[in-house]
């Protein structure tokens, strides 16, 4: 991680990685979604709506994964003062917020035909909604700190405190059993039939790569903006 403390060294890695993540992500996501739509049978209970799983599960994974990344970046910033940690946190937030929102909306669409309701204030849905609001708070806080020329330490603290919500989301279906189904994956294996399950890892990996490409693009944009601001300040001082 410290190897990339130098922005020039990071950019040398990030430029080709952005392209590779995008191309691989696109190929895997298309394979997963086409496989899920056209080459899997309908579920015996849910019928065709089970296919929503191939977009809902990756978005839930990335909504939570984004905040896990923010928490790691926050630790790197607060403990090691890593120069790219705040940049990474600010780049992760809009991508994580987007996938948290996709998770909430696709979950709601899935809920209508399977549960008979668009929304229920159960533990999983509510804690996921809280995660989305945490993202909005983090984006506002980090942007305000950046504009004021701060190091982003308050946003980093917020990122760490917000991580408390992650185990709550994970265990919500065990602690409060309401409408949302219990966990389908565990140490004992999967509760989903293999004929339906196989496109899910492809779609999840594909969306994860696209998420990574978006984060790297935002990090590159942030670094370029910082460079421009520094040059303008230097020119004004001369």
């Amino acid at each position, binding site marked *: 991680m410290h190897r990339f403390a130098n922005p020039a060294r990071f950019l040398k890695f990030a430029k080709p990685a952005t392209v590779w993540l995008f191309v691989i992500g696109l190929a895997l996501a298309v394979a997963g979604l086409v496989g899920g*739509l056209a080459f899997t049978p309908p579920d015996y209970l849910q019928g065709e709506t089970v296919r929503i799983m191939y*977009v809902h599960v990756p978005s839930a994974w990335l909504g939570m994964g984004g905040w896990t990344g923010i928490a790691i970046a926050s630790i790197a910033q607060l403990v090691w003062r890593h120069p790219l940690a705040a940049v990474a946190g600010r780049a992760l937030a809009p991508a994580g917020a987007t996938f948290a929102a996709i998770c909430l909306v696709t979950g709601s669409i899935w809920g209508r035909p399977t549960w008979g309701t668009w929304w229920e204030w159960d533990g999983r849905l509510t804690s996921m909604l809280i995660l989305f609001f945490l993202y909005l708070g983090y984006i506002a806080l980090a942007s305000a700190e950046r504009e004021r020329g701060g190091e982003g330490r308050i946003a980093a603290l917020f990122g760490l405190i917000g991580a408390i919500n992650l185990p709550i989301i994970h265990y919500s279906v065990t602690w409060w059993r309401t409408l949302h189904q219990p966990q389908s994956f565990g140490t004992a294996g999967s509760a989903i039939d293999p004929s339906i399950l196989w496109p899910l890892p492809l779609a999840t990996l594909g969306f994860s790569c696209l998420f990574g490409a978006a984060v790297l693009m935002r990090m590159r944009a942030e670094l370029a903006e910082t460079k421009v601001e520094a040059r303008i300040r230097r020119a004004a001082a001369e």
Partner: protein
Amino acid sequence: MNHWAFVTAAYVVALGGTVALLAWAYATMRRAEAAAEATKRK
């Protein structure tokens, strides 16, 4: 109840959101890197 209408709606939301995120990240990156290049030349 037509299940495919719900499936289509979910895919439109997911793909639309992902494409919008990628397009926004790409546009901001291109704009910022072009500005950095322009200030470098000055």
